[in-house]
């Protein structure tokens, strides 16, 4: 008897539980939950993004923004997103994607064009820096909205250049000579003249493009067709190898990743370093940085007769084509890509603005004085090739560049391989 009673109790409580769950689902359905994906890397500042989501939630009652973090590097995020989006997964509404991805994702029909929600591309994109305005408009449609900018900068040890009476070099040759001079005078075998990224990571695409662009050459035309100047590509790669032979760049450069450059510069082992904008904060603020207050930033050197150009990065907000809440997601994207958000990210996290006007905003300049000089570097920045097959373009360039820097291929073989493999893809 007792047993039967307890069974009935159990059955009733199960029923109540099911009913309760049903009710909570019902109340849940009246509000909207947006799920946002962004990288877990420190450079994407999930903590500050959360504050922006909270602002949006406060202005839009009934909307909850959930966050999914993943992948510390651009390649890892791309691999994860390829899987999720290929499965047409509707669970994520908004993605924070690398500047090289809008063309590829829009081409694969993974992104919702935002024209219907935000307006005509020409009007919407007007206030942004040109490179972001063009990179996010694919086939005449808004594929994504600029979140924050980034670019490759040339960092240097101001204290060491001053100590040895060396001026900021304007060309690559001057840089190599300056580095060799300081290295010799310091007599420290662990001091690297220049640190670049040679491992087969996304940064190595820029390692290939920087000396190539600085000769005034184009990698692709406006239509995305490959316009590789092979002799210039060979010259660019040879320039890095010559610096390795001189001892300016270290021998195992083909192992160096973005984080290695940052850590070695922080440890005081590097004179010049090419790295993304987030590194500035690491040098300045990290407790283990030995170079606080000794760091300068300058434009990238040119090749004699060419013009300096840096590699532009940065992150964009995009609405998934499989989202079930596209209109409200577009509204959040609008908030995240607004001048106010850009100013907030700049002042609080020194993330580079995508608006020209924010660079000169008094509050921002006060918080991050070096942004005044950063603007010209970013404006002069160039975008890596926009291609629907960017995954392949990137893989070919970074793998080949790394192999040349490891000296398993000659620069001539490397340039020929890039040309033969990409001619088929970039047409």
């Amino acid at each position, binding site marked *: 008897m007792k047993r039967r009673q307890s069974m009935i109790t159990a059955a009733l409580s199960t029923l109540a539980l099911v009913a309760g769950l049903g009710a909570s689902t019902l109340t849940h359905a009246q509000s909207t939950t947006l799920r946002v994906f962004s990288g877990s890397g420190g450079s994407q500042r999930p903590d500050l993004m959360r504050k922006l989501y909270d602002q949006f939630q406060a202005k839009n009652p009934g909307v909850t923004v959930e966050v999914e973090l993943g992948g510390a590097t651009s390649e890892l995020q*791309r*691999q994860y997103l*390829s*899987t999720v989006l*290929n499965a047409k997964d509707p669970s994520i509404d908004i993605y924070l994607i690398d500047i090289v991805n809008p063309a*590829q994702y829009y*081409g*694969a*029909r993974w992104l919702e064009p935002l024209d219907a929600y935000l307006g005509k591309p020409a009007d919407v994109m007007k206030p942004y820096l040109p490179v972001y305005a063009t990179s996010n408009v694919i086939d005449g449609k808004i594929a994504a909205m600029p979140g924050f900018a980034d670019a490759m900068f040339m960092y240097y040890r101001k204290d060491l250049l001053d100590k040895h009476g060396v001026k900021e070099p304007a060309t690559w040759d001057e840089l190599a000579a300056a580095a060799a001079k300081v290295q010799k005078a310091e007599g420290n075998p662990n001091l690297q003249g220049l640190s670049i990224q040679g491992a*087969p990571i996304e940064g190595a695409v820029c390692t290939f493009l920087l000396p190539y662009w600085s000769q005034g050459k184009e990698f692709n035309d406006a239509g995305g067709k490959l316009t590789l100047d092979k002799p210039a590509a060979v010259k660019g790669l040879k320039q890095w190898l010559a610096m390795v032979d001189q001892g300016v760049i270290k*021998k*195992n450069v*083909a*192992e160096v990743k973005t984080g290695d450059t940052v850590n070695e510069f922080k440890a005081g082992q590097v004179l010049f370093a090419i790295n993304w904008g987030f590194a500035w904060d690491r040098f300045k603020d990290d407790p283990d940085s030995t170079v606080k207050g000794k760091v300068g930033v300058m434009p990238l050197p040119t090749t004699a007769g060419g013009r300096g150009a840096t590699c532009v990065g940065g992150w964009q907000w995009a609405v998934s084509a499989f989202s079930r809440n596209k209109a409200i997601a577009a509204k959040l994207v609008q908030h995240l890509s607004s001048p106010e958000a850009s100013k907030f990210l700049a002042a609080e996290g020194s993330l580079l603005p995508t608006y020209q006007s924010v660079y000169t905003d008094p509050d921002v300049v006060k918080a991050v004085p070096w942004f005044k000089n950063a603007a010209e570097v970013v404006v002069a920045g160039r975008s890596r090739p926009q291609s*629907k*097959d960017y*995954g*392949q373009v990137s*893989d070919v360039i970074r*793998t*080949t560049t*790394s*192999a040349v820097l*490891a*000296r*398993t*291929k000659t620069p001539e073989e490397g340039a020929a391989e890039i040309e033969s493999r990409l001619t088929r893809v970039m047409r």
Partner: protein
Amino acid sequence: MSTHQEHPVAGTTTWDRLRDPSEKTLGVMLLAPAFLLLALIVVYPIGKLIWNSFFDLRLSGGGEARFVGLENYALVLRDADFWNAAGNTVLIVLITVPAALVVGMGLALLANLPFKRQWPVRLALLLPWALPLAFAGLIFAWFFHSEHGVVNDVLRRLGGNEPQMWLLRPNWAFAAICLTIVWKTSSFMALILLAGLQMIPKSLYEAAEVDGATKWQQFWQITIPMLMPSIIVALIFRTITALQTFDIPYTMTKGGPGNSTETLAMLIHKTTIDYLDVGYGSTLAVCMFVLSLLVTGFYLKHIGKNA
């Protein structure tokens, strides 16, 4: 046999037949759920893979599939990347499978010695096996790092002056990967062989002892023949996993420098996930599937004779 009666006789309606099925029907009924599950998770994906391999299906082009027949297969035959990856994969099989067998045999014989405490040896055997492949790859990549790696540190202490860049030289990188795979997989071999060793009756050795056989003769005349079934099982498993090698080279070199250490599984992953070329990626996967079938068939044919 009519089912139109008002009160049907037991065993004539469908319902009654289901309640009291014949042996054959019962067999089908009991097998059906397992078969359906298997069809869903094995047959359907393989079928879909083969189907996709006949299409030009590139997600970067918007994802429309265009039937191209055997064109993808013709491309594979002319694809230098495929032959490079296939060559590397076969080389990894040829090097690491025998090496892991020899090392695993040594470990198994060691673990089978009458130690007072057996668990430390067994634990040492189990640990590499329990470690995820990617971790093993990352750990060994760190060992072989040209600046911070323990390998170069030891060499420097022994008097070498120029640090070797192990993972940036194609042959050294390949050797480092093979070494890691052998380290990682020998313990699996050893576990299977150890189980086999413990099945061999002690009396055989005692009899051999009485007849005056040396330890060496005992090993070749008793241990090896008695162990043959275990050896073959271990070889089949190891060969199939070696054909699928992905994690260790991916974490150690990412296929580099260039694509000199790229395996077939890595090429398939790159083509599908990075290049978003599902059609050609499927074709490559079918080729790898055929290669695995050939190797398994070879083993099965020869086991039939030997065991």
